[in-house]
């Protein structure tokens, strides 16, 4: 994911793309609204999907996209996690998407470099102790009571 956008309070509009794909839930849509306005103002092609389809439908829609597609999403942690996993799985790179978590439980994360434990609200974050950019994995340690954060 684009780590810089996750730590900001707004998504950044990226011009020069052939098609824009946007996902939002009720809480996330206000954060996507400026992007939608920009797309309409510039008469750019986009699809806006409210609430994430079933996983199979998400993968089908994402894998049908062409190079030049840009993915935006804003919403609950669960939706963002699913979209991130599916998008990376079909070939989206971090340069081709911005995903913002707007609600959900913060995770406890174990930094793989300094081993400090901290809270995370996004699936990507910067370690508050050593500054390493981390991707929060699904690997959970019952000993540390935290998810493993590995270097990006």
């Amino acid at each position, binding site marked *: 994911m684009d780590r810089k956008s996750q730590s900001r309070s707004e998504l950044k509009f990226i011009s*020069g793309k*052939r098609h824009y794909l946007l996902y939002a839930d009720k809480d996330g849509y206000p954060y996507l609204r400026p992007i939608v306005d920009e797309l309409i103002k510039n008469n750019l092609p986009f699809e806006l999907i409210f609430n994430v389809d079933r996983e199979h439908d998400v993968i089908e829609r994402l*894998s049908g*996209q062409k190079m*030049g597609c840009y993915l935006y999403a804003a919403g609950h942690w669960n939706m963002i996690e699913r979209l991130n996993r599916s998008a990376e799985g079909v*070939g*989206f*790179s971090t340069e*081709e998407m911005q995903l913002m978590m707007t609600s959900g439980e913060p995770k406890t994360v174990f930094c793989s470099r300094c081993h400090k434990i901290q809270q995370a609200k996004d699936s990507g974050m910067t370690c508050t102790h050593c500054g390493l950019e981390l991707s929060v994995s699904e690997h959970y340690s019952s000993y540390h009571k935290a998810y493993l954060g590995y270097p990006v």
Partner: protein
Amino acid sequence: MKKVIQETPRIKRFLLSPEEGFRLPAFSAGSHITTYVSGRECHYSLVSSPEDRKVYELAVLLEEGSKGGSLYWHHHIHEGDQVDISDPKNHFPLSDRAKHHIFFAAGIGITPFMAMMAQLRANSGSFELHYAARSKDQCAFYEDIVRQYPGESQFYFSKDNCRMTPEILEKQPIGTHVYFCGPEAMINQFSNAAKSNGYPEGSIHFERFAPKKPTDPKSFEVELKKSGRILNVPEDETLLDVILRAGIRAPYSCRVGECGTCELQVLKGEIDHYDSCLTEGEKREQNVMLACVSRALSSKLVLNV
């Protein structure tokens, strides 16, 4: 030198095997080696499959007007000769994130893609090749490609008025990475087309065999801050050549402005960037430059050397 094959009127293939008892270092597709012949360092892509540790294969184009490496290779290297080479280095690797790879080759630019296609075939990777040449008889590896990759390759012979165009880049599925190797104009045209089609920078890969040519090269001075030495860089030499000749042990590798090994800190002066390694932001900051290709817009640069 195990074998020499005349591949086309201007391209020869050279198969190198190690001395008795030695095994060649492993390499990844896209790698090149430096060869040391006739007092010159020449870089050539490894054409052979990375699966084969017994032979390295190169293909050398006899450059028009060559007075150096390619001329020596074509006229003075024979089977049985001993040749000194470096370990392989890779500034042009396959992306491990790509779902599909598209190779665009022009002329001798086919060489890195031969190893890439072999590696992908061995690992069941998805790829296609688009290869432009003047004609079939000037198309290196034509028979090998048709035999090994009939469903993945497309040829464009300019003698038949058949041109390779950037329209191929349109409507490619998400996860596609594109790779370009050939003349400067071809790399620029296709890279720009990829960006216009919305491809992110990380999905666009290219390898130059020659550095970008400065539009109007002028001589300039450099002051080496740590020693106080002043050197002059003539219009027909690179900064790297001048500082190496002055006995400074500056690191370098590709010599075409791609790998970043020769990066130097600039303390004062205006840099004229010709590399394809630094980001636009780094170039704007005007405090680092690649010595192998970049020059000065001001009459003098002060380097932290």
